[in-house]
């Protein structure tokens, strides 16, 4: 059992086992025969074969199938065989593997809506091709019975197709009408229905003009827009799900018979839990056994680790650093402070719901205009000719010509192109309107810990020590897994220092490491234990024998691309603000290092949210970049928000855009791309309007033949799609 008790492997240590997502926990049963592993490094046919062969050789594995698109392998195995048994097998074959929570992935595997939409699109496409071919002979001059026959065949193809493929529009339009609203689907449904009805009537009177081809082309192009829209969102959704699924929420419960691994959802108040060094607190509680240090940076933004001993209260989400702890749960699941903080998000998010996307603005102007225009055309022609049939024909032609075919494609085509480009750069657009909002940004607020900094400390003052002291420090630091020790070890080794020979090295959890050097006691650790003074930056103290305690100070290393991102944003004319819950000195140092003029330190979560709100009230459009739980309210309250993949689940849920890579460098780029995308959307609206301006007078004048309708519709849709593809 010892091997199985390690904390689950994860791509980002910071995001392992966040208890925020209860849904994930609910589906987790470790005895499941179905295991899914994420394989971030596979890329070729050989990789797939290597992984599949290695896995299928394991006794108990029934089948293993790699999905290269998703970079995953799904394994069917005997119950009892878990991810912890299979990950080493894949690692042995030379590939990195991480367990994915199958419960959290279920939604991607059954992307029913997408398949349904694709089916309707395919049927509409097939019908459009056939009807268009029949129409070509009519346009090129088929007459009399031949024309009638072609019209009847077109009708026979079109009617069932529209009944099947057009359902989506009819249902949405009906829903909107029932609620007393108008949306884009109302003019669409009306145009399709009117076109089909008048065409049927015309055909039965063996008339010249039938708009079956226009009706079916309209359905096809609009479905294409819907499908693009759906795909963009489902790609984002599946990537977000994968991030969530990497955090398998498990805990180790201490019972009379020993320890058992349980799902976080099964925990109850009063349970005793063992939290290993490096593990995250699954619940709120109180320490009953053990000593250690806690990293609270994701909750408070403070980088200084806190000493923890029996009696100390802990909150869900904190990371245990040095010694094993036993915690008695005082609040679990929804009751934890982590969850209560996440509730702040819901409040802040209500503000954003007021944003009206460009497409809706266009639709609001457009829908009534079209209906009035076609009604006027009908009345005018009816009064002029006293012929109901002619008037209805012209009204139908107006509705078809003005139908928002290009409008329906204008936004999805651009957002698909832009999201695809940003996805390649490592940015995941979660929200449909995030791009539009991002393009309006003029103020950028950064969180410090974990966002601008990588969360890995770097020692700053090794020059203040004698070589002898450094050798002792290295020998002590090498014996501990504490992040400060690990960083000190790396720095000193790189400086070419060899460890001193010490005896009796022992780590005292929660305090530091001690040993004996030439009969003298040497200690490296917390100020209070070593006998050092106060320090307001992250620090470790070293004491040799009876000598004075000396301090190693640490600074957080910058995240990749942080400098470029800040410089790029300032150059682009944005106002950049640094907001952190950390100490004033730490924040000031970082701000001056990055050249950020405005900064706020020791900000509580409410302060951050209030500050963001104040900026919005001033009329500024704020982009918030943050990762911690203390940022979630601010993330949700900002005009648009970005969080890195290493952020807590709650922060990622609250933000519109997730940075998949490690670097911050794509942020200014993303704003530039979003601005260009919005420009393209406006251009597309312009193009669609121009087509209408040219074609509508023709339609009202009664000169619009089905040929002109088909040309205008296809040409405007194709122009709009091509314009979207120009986006770089």
């Amino acid at each position: 059992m010892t091997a199985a008790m390690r904390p689950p492997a994860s791509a980002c240590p910071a995001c392992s086992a966040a208890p925020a997502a209860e849904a994930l926990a609910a589906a987790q049963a470790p005895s499941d025969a179905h295991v899914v592993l994420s394989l971030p490094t596979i890329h070729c046919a050989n990789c797939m074969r290597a992984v599949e062969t290695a896995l299928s050789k394991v006794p108990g594995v029934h089948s293993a199938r790699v999905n290269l698109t998703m970079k995953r392998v799904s394994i069917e195995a005997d119950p009892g065989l878990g991810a912890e048994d299979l990950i080493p097998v894949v690692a042995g074959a030379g590939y990195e593997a991480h367990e994915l929570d199958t419960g959290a992935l279920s939604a991607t595997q059954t992307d029913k809506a997408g398949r349904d939409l694709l089916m309707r699109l395919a049927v509409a496409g097939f019908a459009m091709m056939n009807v268009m071919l029949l129409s070509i002979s009519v346009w090129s001059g088929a007459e009399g019975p031949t024309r009638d026959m072609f019209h009847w065949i077109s009708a026979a193809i079109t009617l069932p197709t529209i009944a099947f493929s057009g359902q989506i529009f009819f249902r949405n339009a009906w829903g909107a009408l029932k609620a007393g609203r108008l949306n884009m689907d109302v003019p669409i449904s009306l145009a399709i229905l009117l076109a089909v009805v008048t065409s049927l009537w015309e055909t039965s009177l063996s008339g010249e003009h039938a708009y079956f081809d226009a009706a079916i082309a309209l359905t096809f192009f609009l479905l294409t827009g819907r499908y693009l829209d759906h795909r963009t969102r489902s790609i984002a959704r599946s990537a977000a799900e994968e991030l969530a699924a990497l955090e398998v929420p498990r805990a180790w419960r201490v019972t009379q018979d020993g320890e058992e691994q349980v799902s976080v959802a099964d925990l109850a108040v009063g349970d005793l839990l063992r939290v290993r060094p490096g593990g995250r607190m699954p619940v709120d509680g109180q320490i009953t056994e053990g000593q250690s240090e806690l990293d609270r940076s994701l909750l408070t933004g403070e980088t200084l680790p806190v000493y923890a001993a029996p009696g100390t209260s802990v909150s869900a989400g904190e990371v245990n650093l040095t010694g094993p702890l036993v915690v008695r749960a005082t609040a679990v699941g929804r009751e934890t402070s982590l969850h209560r903080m996440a509730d702040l998000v819901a409040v802040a998010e209500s503000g954003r719901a007021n944003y009206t996307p460009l497409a809706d603005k266009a639709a609001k102007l457009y829908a009534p205009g079209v209906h009035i225009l076609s009604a006027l055309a009908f009345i005018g022609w009816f009064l002029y000719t006293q012929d109901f049939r002619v008037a209805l024909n012209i009204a139908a032609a107006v509705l078809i010509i003005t139908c928002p075919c290009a409008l329906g494609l204008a936004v999805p085509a651009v957002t698909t192109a832009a999201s695809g480009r940003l996805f390649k750069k490592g940015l995941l657009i979660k929200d449909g309107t995030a791009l539009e909002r991002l393009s309006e940004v003029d103020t950028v607020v950064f969180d410090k810990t974990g966002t601008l900094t990588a969360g890995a400390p770097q020692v700053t003052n090794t020059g203040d020590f004698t070589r002898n002291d450094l050798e002792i420090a290295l020998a002590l630091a090498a014996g501990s897994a504490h992040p400060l020790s690990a960083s000190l070890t790396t720095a000193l080794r790189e400086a070419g220092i060899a460890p001193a020979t010490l005896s009796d090295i022992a780590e005292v959890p929660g305090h530091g490491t001690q040993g004996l050097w030439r009969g003298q006691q040497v200690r490296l650790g917390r100020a209070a234990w070593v006998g050092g003074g106060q320090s307001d930056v992250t620090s470790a103290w070293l004491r040799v024998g009876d000598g004075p305690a000396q301090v190693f100070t640490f600074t957080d290393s910058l995240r990749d691309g942080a400098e470029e991102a800040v410089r790029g944003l300032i150059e682009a004319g944005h106002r950049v603000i640094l907001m952190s819950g950390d100490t004033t000195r730490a924040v000031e140092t970082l701000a001056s290092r990055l050249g950020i003029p405005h900064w706020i330190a020791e900000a509580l979560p409410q302060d951050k949210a209030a500050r963001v709100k104040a900026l919005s009230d001033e009329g500024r459009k704020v982009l918030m970049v943050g990762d911690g739980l203390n940022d979630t309210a601010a993330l949700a309250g900002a005009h648009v928000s970005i969080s890195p993949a290493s952020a807590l689940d709650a922060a990622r849920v609250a933000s519109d855009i997730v940075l998949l890579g490690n670097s911050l460098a794509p942020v200014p780029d993303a704003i530039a791309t979003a601005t260009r995308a919005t420009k393209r959307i406006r251009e597309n609206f312009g193009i669609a309007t121009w087509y209408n301006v040219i074609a509508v007078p023709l339609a009202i004048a009664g000169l619009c033949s089905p040929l002109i309708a088909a040309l205008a519709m296809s040409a405007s849709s194709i122009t709009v799609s091509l314009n979207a593809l120009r986006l770089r």
Partner: protein
Amino acid sequence: MNILLYLIPISLFLGGMGLLFFVITVRTKQYDDPEGNAQRILSGQYDDAPKQD
């Protein structure tokens, strides 16, 4: 022009077959891993007896 009476149904039938096959491929989830399928065909490993699912 009587030939149309044969040709149009034939062309519709053939097109319909294409649509039917497409529907089958969607139903059997053949678009779930386009990249993997493209790579799998390059594998040099031949198996006379395909795996039983």
